[in-house]
């Protein structure tokens, strides 16, 4: 039975792109399929180095690092920096990978209301007051804010300008998780920093995924060299896991090439998302949760009665 696919996160349609498929097949003929080792032990191929360079150039950062699984990216990146005794400010509606990363870091976690910058500011103020009582401890307590560019669980876009303002006011580092927003937001698909016209250096680290817009497997983190090179030794999903199969890295490079050549992909995606959302919103008994420009949104039944009724609906 043939159906229209509104379920997979194949935003730019690269999953069936012939050019990507050809380059991946060529890669199998050169490197085989598996990489047979972690990055430190003969699992680094020149395609990995190329992909890292391309991602760093594309996003405008100094350095990038590739992981072999999208989930493991942010779940390994957060515990590499934030340890026991540090403080993490995390959005309530953040995705499961962030929650696992935060849990594994053993740091103190303070959740703030979803996308509510005033609530975040009040919690930051409270933490500052608490630290004021113990000056010695506050000098070694690192603080981080973890937000998503485009939230998987609600389809909202984070308020990046306000977050950058809070970062400098309260001296808290900012990590943005751009799994969904990379290749979706912004005029050329560079993500939420381009969407809001904020220089990418203002964000300490961007974690993204190659699994959605780029139709490959894996994830990346990019930022300044000072921050990213630390993960080469202490990112658990990087050091203790086999590297990304070369053909998938090649597919991702090809996808980035296409993204740079065809700029109209992003405006097309945006206009289609807006059009579809407008049509859906017209249906009276449905409530749409998500930003009007977002290609990911949730539909709920208005006046929900019970679980069974909703399922039948």
């Amino acid at each position, binding site marked *: 039975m043939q159906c229209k696919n509104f379920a997979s996160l194949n935003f730019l349609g690269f999953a069936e792109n012939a050019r990507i498929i050809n380059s991946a097949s060529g890669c199998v*003929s050169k490197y*085989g399929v598996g*990489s047979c080792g972690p990055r430190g032990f003969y699992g680094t191929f020149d395609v*990995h180095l190329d992909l890292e360079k391309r991602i760093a150039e594309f996003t405008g950062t100094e350095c990038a690092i590739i992981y072999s699984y999208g989930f493991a990216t942010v779940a390994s990146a957060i515990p590499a920096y934030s340890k026991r005794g540090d403080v993490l400010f995390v959005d309530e509606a953040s995705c499961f990978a962030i929650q*696992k990363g935060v*849990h594994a870091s053993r740091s103190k976690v303070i959740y703030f209301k979803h996308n509510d910058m005033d609530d975040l500011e009040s919690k930051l103020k409270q933490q500052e007051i608490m630290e004021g009582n113990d000056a010695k401890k506050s000098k070694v307590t690192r603080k981080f804010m973890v937000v998503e560019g485009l939230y998987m669980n609600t389809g909202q876009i984070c308020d990046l300008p306000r977050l950058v303002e809070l970062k400098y006011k309260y001296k808290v580092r900012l990590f943005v998780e751009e799994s969904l927003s990379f290749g979706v937001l912004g005029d050329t698909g560079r993500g939420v920093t381009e969407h809001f016209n904020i220089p990418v250096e203002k964000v300490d680290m961007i974690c993204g995924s190659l*699994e959605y817009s780029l139709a490959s*497997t894996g994830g990346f983190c990019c930022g300044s060299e000072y921050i990213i090179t630390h993960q080469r030794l202490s990112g658990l999903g990087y050091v203790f*896991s086999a590297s990304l*199969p070369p053909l998938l890295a090649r597919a991702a490079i090809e996808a980035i090439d296409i993204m740079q050549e065809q700029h109209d992909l992003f405006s097309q995606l945006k206009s289609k998302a807006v059009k579809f959302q407008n049509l859906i919103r017209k249906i009276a008994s449905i409530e749409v949760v998500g930003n009007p420009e977002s290609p990911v949104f949730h539909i709920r039944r208005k006046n929900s009665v019970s679980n069974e009724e909703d399922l039948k609906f």
Partner: protein
Amino acid sequence: VRNHIAMAIVLLFGWLRDFLNEHVFTPEPSAHEQEDLKDFVPLYTTFERFFVRNVIERGYDVLHRPVCTVPGAVIDIRERKFSSSGKFLGLTGKVFRNVVNLGSYNYLGFAQNEGVCADAAVKAVAELGTGVCSNRFEVGNYEIHSKLERKMAEFLGVEDCMTFGMGFATNSMNIPCLVGKGCLVISDACNHASLAIGCKISGATIRVFKHNDMKDLEKILRHSIVEGHPRTYRSWKKILIIVEGIYSMEGTIVNLPEVIRLKKKYKAYVYLDEAHSIGSLGSRARGVTDYFDIDPTEIDVLMGTFTKSFGASGGYIAGRRELVEHLRLNSHSACYGVSMSPPVAQQALSSLNVIMSEEGKERITQLAANTRLFREKLRTFGFIVYGHEDSPVVPLLAYLPSHIACFSREMLARGYGVVVAGFPSTPLGESRVRFCISSALSKQQILDALEAISDIGDIMRLKISAKQILYKFGKLKK
């Protein structure tokens, strides 16, 4: 003691270098924090930065060597440029050609870019694409995943199996589904980081027993059952013993018959991580259960990866039907992580088919012969080698951190690529060189490699085993 002195000397030189860089010479520009973040709390501790700068970066050219061909028996390595302080600057353009690969996890030689498996993978890319863009629950459940699972269950001799996109994530995302608060996990001291993370996230109480020491395991089991949960003193909901088939840094094979005996006696469950042993042990390559001739249904949870012996990537968990059904519904990976990429799943499936055929038997015998030859010769030379006789993971002890860096560079100069590991992957005093034997290596390549190792061993005086003299006068009794 020699080790600690060596480490102290390295650190002393580090301090001296930093002091000179600060006060006398102009240091090279290195990565540092952005200007506008100077008032923020420092991201790394001073000791961390010091250790990385002065100890690890000095030996950085032996790690992360970029390969530019298929990771089979022979590879080409690109040379890298480093600054005098060890910072990576780029590729020089020169290539070390035809380096014999003693480091990649290629036990049955499936790292091939031609042949049945590669052709099938190319076909899978053309038909199904490279990316799945969805998790197993939603629209990421392809027919090839189900085929692979059925074949793997048949191969292992169990009822059902489930595959996942990444081996590390298989452990870290599924152990929390199996155990939780109120459960006890008893794990081996040398378990992999993925198992440690999975146990930590699950919230269960963790106890560690000495590496492969069954008496210690029994002692801990008895004490834990008698004492109960540390705070409530109630009995445990579940006891899970986590062991690995072959330990990747030690090369030892788990004492499985004894673990099964203890499990039955104390009514615990066993989680067996066969990342290295599946495909490389046993007369039919079925892993450590095949090696000891144990019925695989006696192990409660069989876990493994496709990276090492199958030339693909990803992991699986196999066992009774109820267990796998529970994981299909509750696993975090099924719900939040994407499923295996189609060409990778196809590679795993084709290599499974090959292993179960006549050609597979040849590969298995070749691997066993290579392993035996390599280990026997190393012991007669007088090196200190850890691990069991049949384990294709061969750690050779070099002890000092400077020795392992020198060994790796000398081997590369002679055309052999080896893997070295030191602190913090191994204990401080036990830096080692780890060889991974592959069935793709011919007998002549192994003999030549042994000659090179013996040469370097003489230069660096590593042949310090007390058993060397016994080998000279007669066969050593095992």
